[in-house]
Structures are given as C-alpha cells and as structure tokens.
C-alpha cells in the first residue's frame, strides 16, 4: 500500500508539471509528426512527394520505350520529357537537362543506339546526371534504374546463355552420331558464358556529376550547418532559463536597484547569449573544417554573416522565451519543444526540398530554415555573399522583432 501511495504522489507531481508533460508527450508527438510528414515522400508509400526528373530520350527503339514505361511506373518520379521555352513545349535535350539538374538534382538520358545494343546483345548504357550537392534524389533514381536494368539484364543473359548452350549441344550431337554423350564440357562452356556476361552485363548505367565550382561536397558539408544551427539554438535557449533563474533567485531584483536601466540589463544578458552562440557556431565550423575537412565555401565573409545573423536570431528567440515563460522549468520544456520541432521542420536533419511543398512553405516561418538554407547556399551550392543577404537579413529581422517584443514584455519581478 505504501508503494502505491509513493507512486500516486509521484504521478500527482508529474501531472501538475506542465513543462514536464510538454517534454514527455507533446515534444515527441510533434517531432514524430513533422518527421513523418517531411519524409513521407521518401520512405513511405504516400504519394505526397514526387521528384521531378528530366528525361532525355534520344533513342526511339523498343527497349528505350520499355525503359521509359518502367520508369513511369515508379510513383516517386514525376518524369519530365518536355520543357517550356518561349511559350512552346520542347523535347528535353541534354543541355536543358544539364541546366535543370541544378534544381532537380538528377536527370536520366537514354542515348541513341540503346535499343539496338540491347537487342544485339551488346553493352547498352543509360546515363544519370547527378547534382553532387544532393545524395537523396540521385540515390532514388539509381535504385530505380538499376532495379529495372537488373531485370532486363537477367533476361538477356539467360536468353544468350541458353541459345549458345543449345547451339553448342546440337553441334556436338551432330558430330558424334548416337555416341554416348559426356555433358561436362558443355556445362563448362555454359558456366564460361555466364561468367562472361555477368562480368560485363549487357545494360549498365553510368553517372555523371554536374560540373560545379570547387570540390564535391562531403557529408560534413551537409550535416555540420544543420546540426550547428540546432545546437546553437539549444544553447541560446538555455540562456532563457539562466535569465529566469536570476529572476527566481533575486539577482535581477537587485540589479534593478542599481543605477543602470532595465534595457541595459536585458541587453547585457542578450549580449552574453549572442557572444556564446557565435563562438559555439564558430567552433563547430572550425572543427568541421580542421577535423573533418569540411568545405567552408567561397565566401568567408558570407559565412561570418550567416553565423552572426543566426546567433542574433537565436538570442532573440531565447529572450522571447524568457519574456513569455514564467519559470525556468517552463522555459526549458518549451525551448526543447521549439528547437526540436524547428530542426525537424526547418531542414536541420534533412534537406528541406525533400519535404512536401506545403511543409517547405511553413518551414520558412522558422529561423532554422533560413539559417540552414543560407549555410547550404554557401557551403554546398558554392554561392557567394550576395546570395545569402536575404536569409541573413531575414534572420537579423527575426532577431530584432523577437528582442523588441521581449524587452517590452519581460517582467523583472
């Protein structure tokens, strides 16, 4: 019975702890929901997300048509055989596909002579042009194409091997006239044929990277900015708890009696949070660069601007939390909820473009989307200072808005 009383008391305390309940239930529900919606088009059977893929068909034979039909059956692909120019529909060309790959991440080319090579038992090749800045979409395309190729190749190999084996057998029988047959040499021949064909399948795909400035991005180039933004946000939002702790233990009240303005107190708090967030971000990028060979992009100035604007926006958010939360534990629960939800939605954990379009739009109300977008433009897409002025400006604007509201709303008592 005592055991029950202890358990009951603990549960009573737990269910009165609103921030604790938020962390326990609402945070995982929200993060799981956001992740499921975001990745529904990649991993699930949901038809919500289709990748638009330019397809250049230079061959008009049957095998090329079969290949196209097979590709059309893949739900995740929205094949684009045409493009619009000057108001007119045009057949997709290699040049146009090259151009589109910058946005669409991959393109498929079925070259001239493909069908002839397939039917003639010669090696036929499908080309996949991939944007090296992305791994997800080209990966999906390669899987789809190789699966089809594998089926086609198996059929061709079986056809070739069988035909040649039978021809060889008939020839042998004709020469020896009813003599007792030893199949060992024929089996050896069949095995040799199979070896020959499987070593060099009749259809293969080759990938070609889109030409880009500098070296191809590494996984660190993708992951460091996203996770850096998430941890900077986690660090900065903990500053809200520190500020509320000062309110709870009375030091803020003491500061109010000193000959300094309330704004100075809050701006001082903000400044320490901003410096911490900036240094944290710099350290993460420095470790990525020095320790893991991460690419820092072509514009160090642009990178610094993104770091500063991200730290500023994160600081603004932390002050906003401090202004609206009544207690430390409340701030802590709400900040974890916010940061994880924003990270899932805003592209810290996966590229934003794999999310459904409606989610991508919503994502841009979060500072994470602007920050990871800006960093990706610099580090992954090789863009320059001018290209990140918009995300940096939005982040600085968000920070300013959050701070203004926080300064007006914050209570020292």
């Amino acid at each position: 019975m005592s055991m029950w009383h202890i358990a009951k008391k603990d549960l009573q305390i737990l269910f009165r702890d609103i921030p604790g309940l938020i962390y326990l239930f609402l945070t995982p529900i929200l993060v799981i929901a956001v992740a499921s919606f975001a990745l529904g088009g990649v991993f699930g059977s949901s038809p919500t997300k289709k990748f638009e893929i330019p397809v250049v068909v230079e061959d008009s034979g049957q095998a090329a048509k079969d290949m196209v039909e097979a590709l059309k059956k893949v739900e995740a692909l929205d094949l684009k055989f045409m493009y619009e120019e000057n108001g007119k529909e045009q057949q997709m060309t290699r040049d146009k596909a090259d151009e589109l790959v910058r946005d669409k991440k991959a393109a498929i080319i079925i070259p001239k002579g493909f069908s002839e090579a397939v039917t003639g038992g010669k090696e036929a090749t499908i080309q996949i042009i991939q944007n090296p800045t992305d791994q997800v979409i080209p990966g999906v395309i390669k899987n789809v194409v190789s699966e089809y190729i594998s089926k086609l190749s198996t059929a061709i190999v079986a056809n070739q091997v069988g035909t040649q084996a039978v021809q060889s057998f008939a020839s042998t029988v004709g020469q020896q006239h009813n003599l007792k047959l030893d199949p060992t040499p024929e089996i050896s021949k069949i095995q040799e044929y199979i070896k020959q064909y499987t070593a060099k399948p009749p259809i293969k795909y080759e990938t070609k990277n889109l030409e880009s400035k500098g070296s191809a991005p590494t996984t660190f180039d993708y992951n460091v900015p996203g996770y850096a933004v998430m941890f900077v946000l986690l660090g900065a939002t903990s500053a809200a708890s520190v500020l509320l702790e000062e309110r709870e233990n009375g030091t803020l009240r003491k500061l109010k009696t000193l000959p300094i303005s309330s704004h100075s107190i809050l701006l001082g708090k903000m400044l320490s949070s901003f410096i911490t967030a900036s240094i944290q971000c710099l350290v993460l990028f420095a470790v990525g660069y020095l320790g893991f060979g991460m690419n820092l992009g072509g514009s160090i100035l642009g990178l610094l601007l993104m770091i500063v604007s991200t730290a500023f926006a994160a600081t603004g958010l932390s002050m906003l939390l401090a202004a609206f939360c009544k207690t430390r534990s409340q701030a802590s629960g709400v900040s974890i909820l916010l940061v994880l939800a924003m990270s899932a939605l805003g592209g810290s954990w996966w590229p934003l473009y794999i999310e459904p379009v409606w989610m991508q739009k919503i994502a841009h109300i979060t500072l994470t989307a602007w920050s990871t977008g800006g960093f990706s433009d610099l580090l992954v897409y090789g863009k320059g200072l001018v290209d990140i002025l918009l995300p940096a400006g939005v982040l600085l604007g968000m920070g300013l808005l959050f701070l203004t509201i926080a300064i007006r709303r914050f209570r020292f008592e």
Partner: protein
Amino acid sequence: MSTRDILISTYGLTKKFDSFTAVNGVDLDIYEGEVLGLLGPNGAGKTTLISMLTTILPPDGGSATVCGYDLTKESSKVKQMVSLVPQDLALYLTLTAEENLSFFANLYGLKGREKRSRIKEVLKIAQLEDWANRKVGAYSGGMKRRLNLAVGLLNRPKVLFLDEPTVGVDPQSRNHIFDSIQYLVEEFQMTVIYTTHYMEEAQELCDRVAIYDKGKILDLEETDTLLQKYGEKQLVLDFKSIPDWLVQHISSLPYVDSHHVIDNKLTIHSSNLLGVTENVLSWIRTNQIPVESFNVHESDLESVFLKLTGKKLRD
C-alpha cells in the same frame, strides 16, 4: 528626532496587484541617521513598500521623495543614494566574493583604485577578507548573508534598506549583522530601514518601529513609546497539557483583557497584572490544576502588535 533632516517622505504611497492592494496609502517620514524598523508578519506588504522606495516597482498612487529626489521622476538619482540588501541572496554562487563585488562595483560605476579600496572596505565590514577568493557556493548561510550586506554597501548609500537580512542566519552571523548596522549608522550616519517579522530584532536595533500590516502603517513611534502606549505586562503559565475548557475558564476570569496559547503556554494580557495574577492563581489552587511554572513578563513589541492587529506576528 524631528529636528533631524527628513531623508524619505511618502504621501499616500500605493501599490496594487490586480485587485489586491499590497501597499495602501502609506504616509511616512524617515530621518537621517535613524534605524527604522518595519515590523509586520509575512505577506504584510513590507517588501512591496521597500521595492517602491528602491525604484524596483513603480507606485500606482501617491508620491515620495528620497534624499530630496522625486521617486518616479528622478529614479536614477534615487538609485545612487540608496541600496537594497534583499531578502533573497542576490549573489552569483559560482563566482568568488571578490568577483561578485567587482561585478556590482562596475555597475555602480566604480573604477580603478576607488573600486579596489571600496571592495576591500566592504569585505572588512563583512569580515570576509580571508574568504574573498573562494567561490560563494562554498560559504555558510551566514557568510552569504554577510556578503549580501557587503554588496549593499559598495556605493556607500545614504539610505540602506535591509529586507529581512537575518532569515536563516546562525546567531553569530546575526550578531555580526547587527554590529555592522550599528557601525554603519555611527560611522557614516547611514539611515537604515529594517524590515523584519522578528520583534526581538526590531526591539534591539531600531530607534523607531512602524507596526505594519495589510499594506498600512498602524503606528510609528520610538520603541519605548510604543511599548508604553500599547504594551501590557503578561502573566505566562506553563502547563503539562492545556485543554480547551481550562483556557475558557481562565480567560473568563476578571481582569483578563486578552490571551493566547503557544504550545502549552498560556499568556494572559491585562492592564491590572496584580489583580489578574491573584485571580488566576486562586482559581488554579482551588481547582488543583497542576502548573509547571508561571512568570510575569515585561511588555514587548509582540504584545504591541497583538494589541494593534488582534493577531500574532507569526500568524
């Protein structure tokens, strides 16, 4: 007392929190160099009153001047003149005493040699020179309270507000705080406003005491005057156990003005102590009630408070 300069004057000072009035039209004059006690129970509004006088909270009504400066219009000048030693320990526990003092000294605008000498001075008053470079988290409760006081002295305030400075303090540190206050008043002619709900402290330390309850000053006099005006001598009877019927009988005897029971002690207030003592002892003897002890006490601020508010300080 009235010949001295008035440092703080309030007129109808009021503070409301929604429908709750925490400070209700307080009129108050505080003189230079005096120690004024603000005696009232927890929740009486003492902290709210001094929060207004130290510019933490803006008043909702009335006006006040502190050292000649208007409380609301010249709050930055008021801040230079006053200092608050808050009830909470306004210290950073992961910093050393010296680092804490240096931080607050910076905010007071102290620099260089003046800052160093001021820090040294307040460390000496708090008797924490040997502990200056230790993290405050390692201090005892009493040492933290002393450092809290030291922070409040950095700007050499003309008016020092001490908000329940002895809560949770050992007797040694309490005595040290009392000695420090007396030193500050004598050495620097500092004016001290001391809030407490311990009547012994107010009685021992304060020149004048304001009896404060429900946001109002019920009376403000020199301690002796208050005791003469409202104090009653008390007969205290100590029983092994004290059933309700016994209290009812004794309280209905002639000359018993009021009474209260704490633990097994019955305290009887009367303006005729001789008469009430005769009556009570006679009744006890007749009814053969066992009494552990009985004493006659001098009047104190507890009884003054009881008389003025009808309740005890620790209610």
